[in-house]
């Protein structure tokens, strides 16, 4: 299945703003992050405390809705989902 990965601010500088990614059917949010980490060492270092453990400040959105990176990494993705990877917000 094809999903859209978006990244912003410091993560945009590492991953690019937007890309499409082909994942196996049934892949989870965690699987997606592993794919990104395994193909991009800077992303792995920026986003992960240690293998499999995201830094606590990393924010994730699926289809523009926040998910809890500590509870919902097992959530299954679907064709066309838009996953956004964000550092802590700092507007205003």
């Amino acid at each position, binding site marked *: 299945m094809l999903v859209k990965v978006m990244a912003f601010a410091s993560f945009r500088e590492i991953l690019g703003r937007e890309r499409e990614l082909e994942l196996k059917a049934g892949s989870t949010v965690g699987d997606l992050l592993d794919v990104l980490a395994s193909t991009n060492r800077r992303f792995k270092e920026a986003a992960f405390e240690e293998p499999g453990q995201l830094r606590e400040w990393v924010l994730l959105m699926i289809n523009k809705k926040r998910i809890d990176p500590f509870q919902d990494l097992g959530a299954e993705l679907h064709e066309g989902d838009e996953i*956004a990877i964000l550092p802590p*917000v700092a*507007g*205003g």
Partner: protein
Amino acid sequence: MRYSLPSPGADGRLIKITEEDFSLDEMVRAAKRNDAGAVVTFLGTVRDDGIVEMELEAYREAAQTMLEHIQEEAESRFNLKSVQIIHRIGLLSVGDNIVAIVCAAGHRDEAFQGCRYIIEELKSKVPIWKKEIGKDEERWV
């Protein structure tokens, strides 16, 4: 300076994420209501902390949705008559406008509280980021 003319709905509401500068006079004119006696405005500007420029980036669609939610919540909590929010993105210099929030209410306490609520919510929840660009280094804040 370019001004973007707000085009609010008939109810004086406006939410905009834009590269263009804005005019508080225009925003206030659009926010005014006959039953509103108080308008409180927050304007955030680029402060000189030894920086040369500031780069602002937004996850636009998500930020717009989040701001709409904050606006509705503020209107109902503080009985606001109208709310206008403009947040700029792109490359800004010291002194440039970053964000304006205009809240019209019947009375001043509502307008002050509503405006404060919106900027606090915006800063803690809306997916917008700032990068400070100094002479020798850059950093996301």
